[in-house]
């Protein structure tokens, strides 16, 4: 059962990348066309056209005031404050920052989204090995293909973080830190050198596991029927990896996501991001499996396997909602100003994506995938999968954007361009990796059980 990336898919992916680069390029040019010189004019024009911004300005001040460490200044104080204190900002300068942050944030959100899919699949794959699951070995090669994106995707995220600097991570701006006691207190963890070193350690650990797991999985194919040494090795390193992963994934989510709001923290944030990446990853396994099956490949995958994947999509969607709600309800209920500001910003300025995401990530999967029979219908699973992926993109969008662009968000050319760019890259890497080895991990000791899996 061989597979080679088809020319059409390859060209399609490259077209996506090119379109994406154009979109991203346009985003940066468009943002840099607004400068210190013409920002006043720009805003006057915007207000003149009755743009959405007017109403939001007061709030935007408030949000970013927290952000730029003006905690003590209320809305009214803000105007007066910037005359006296050199670290405060005029409204114009503030908007200018948001405009310049947007293309970086758009790039970062899309890069992280595709990276997290691969990382979620890697965790799922390790769980299958550690649990010695009998149903899933027919899907191992699909999972191994997707996890090929962990290393390139992760490096891209780190690179963007490195170059975006304070455009995304406000604590990387020394001037801000100098006037912010809270960030100063966290500087032992939140500093750029530490951020990069930690990021590289995480990526190295995940990639080493992925390289060896793939190596042993392929070696098991060619081994003697009674020789299960490679499988056993994989079992051991998978168990070890899962321990490493659950710590580093959590730290990664503090570093790469939670630190964009450096004053705010949530103790279950790592779990919450994990749920998001896990459900997105499983969804992509299902989508690629269905795609390959439609090409006449993966004949050994039957509708019970699709059913099981869809059950996971359903179950982990509910798990995600459970964590989202656990985080939201405690903060909403206790109503502590420094905590609740996180959700106030999102409900006021991001109302549609914030609540829309709940519909996409919870209501849709709940209702679409509840019926047992529907979980076996490929086009139904694809439909639910597309909804879930859109929902989790918006989830990441909601995590990053409020901290960087405030109320000046939109899903426009920079955002869609970034999705196309990394989507194309993801397809190219994943399907090239899929073509490297046969699609059936025939040496796996559970492969017969998996082929006959029937529910």
């Amino acid at each position: 059962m061989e597979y080679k990336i088809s020319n059409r898919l390859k060209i399609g992916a490259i077209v996506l990348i090119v379109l994406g680069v154009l979109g991203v390029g346009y985003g940066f040019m468009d943002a840099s066309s607004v400068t210190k010189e013409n920002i006043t004019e720009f805003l006057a024009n915007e207000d003149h056209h009755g743009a959405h911004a007017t109403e939001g300005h007061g709030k935007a001040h408030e949000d970013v005031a927290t952000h730029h460490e003006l905690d003590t200044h209320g809305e009214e104080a803000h105007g007066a404050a910037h005359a006296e204190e050199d670290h405060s900002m005029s409204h114009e300068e503030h908007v200018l920052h948001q405009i310049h942050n947007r293309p970086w944030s758009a790039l970062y959100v899309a890069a992280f989204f595709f990276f997290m899919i691969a990382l979620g699949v890697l965790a799922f794959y390790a769980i299958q090995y550690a649990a010695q699951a009998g149903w899933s070995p027919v899907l191992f090669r699909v999972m191994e293909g997707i996890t090929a994106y962990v290393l390139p995707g992760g490096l891209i995220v780190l690179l963007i973080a490195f170059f975006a600097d304070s455009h995304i991570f406000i604590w990387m701006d020394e001037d801000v830190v100098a006037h912010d006691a809270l960030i100063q207190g966290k500087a032992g963890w939140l500093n750029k050198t530490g951020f990069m070193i930690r990021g590289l350690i995480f990526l190295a650990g995940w990639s080493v596991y992925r390289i060896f797991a793939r190596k042993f999985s392929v070696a098991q194919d060619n081994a003697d029927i009674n020789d299960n040494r490679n499988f056993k090795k994989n079992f051991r390193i998978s168990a070890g990896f899962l321990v490493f992963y659950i710590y580093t994934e959590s730290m990664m989510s503090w570093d790469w996501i939670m630190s964009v709001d450096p004053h705010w923290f949530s103790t279950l944030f790592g779990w919450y991001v994990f749920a998001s990446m896990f459900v997105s990853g499983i969804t992509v396994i299902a989508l690629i499996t269905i795609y390959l099956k439609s090409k006449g490949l993966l004949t050994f995958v039957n509708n019970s396997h699709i059913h099981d994947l869809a059950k996971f999509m359903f179950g982990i969607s509910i798990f995600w909602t459970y964590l989202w709600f656990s985080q939201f309800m405690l903060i909403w209920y206790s109503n502590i100003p420094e905590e609740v500001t996180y959700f106030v910003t999102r409900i006021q300025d991001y109302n549609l994506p914030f609540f829309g995401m709940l519909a996409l990530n919870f209501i849709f999967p709940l209702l679409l995938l509840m019926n047992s029979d529907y979980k076996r219908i490929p086009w139904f699973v694809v439909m639910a999968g597309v909804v879930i992926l859109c929902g989790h993109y918006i989830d990441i969008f909601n995590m990053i954007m409020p901290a960087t662009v405030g109320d000046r968000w939109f899903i426009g050319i920079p955002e869609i361009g970034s999705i196309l760019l990394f989507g194309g890259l993801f397809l190219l890497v994943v399907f090239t990796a899929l073509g490297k080895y046969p699609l059936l991990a025939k040496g796996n000791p559970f492969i017969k059980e998996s082929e006959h899996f029937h529910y």
Partner: protein
Amino acid sequence: MEASKVIHAIYTDDDVLMSAVKKVKAQKHHIEEIYTPFPVHGLDKAMGLAPTRLAITAFLYGCVGITVAITMMNFIMIKDWPQDIGGKPSFSYLENMPAFVPIMFELTVFFAAHLMVITFYLRSRMWPFKKAENPDPRTTDDHFLMEIAVHNNEESLTNLLRETGAVEINIVDNDEDAH
């Protein structure tokens, strides 16, 4: 009436039973009932039973549960004795909804689970102090019993069942064994 006569074929292994069921169905015989000491996976499909509708009732009971929860919380916390919830005395159900979600969830599960079990018992005609229906106490231990009605084909049925690996075949008059 011949239909009052039934054959009881007894098996000692669930795999043998499964293949026996498939053979008997292939010969177009109608299986009245099978008694097993534990649930045998796939037996319902092999017997050609219609899929259970219990899941649909569970969904409906869940809907009842969430409605009860909303009505109850709205009455208790908003209408009858308005409560200040988390320093947000808005006295609006919708604005205080997050506080009620755990109760809505719990009552949904509570109603779905309990009413589904009760429905299952009623549908299976089981209630306290009911006399057991299984014709042979060994089916509660380690034997499997297949019951087939006899229609003037005692001999051919007996032969067929013996071929399928039944360890014991009894012909029972239904009158003696009235449920």
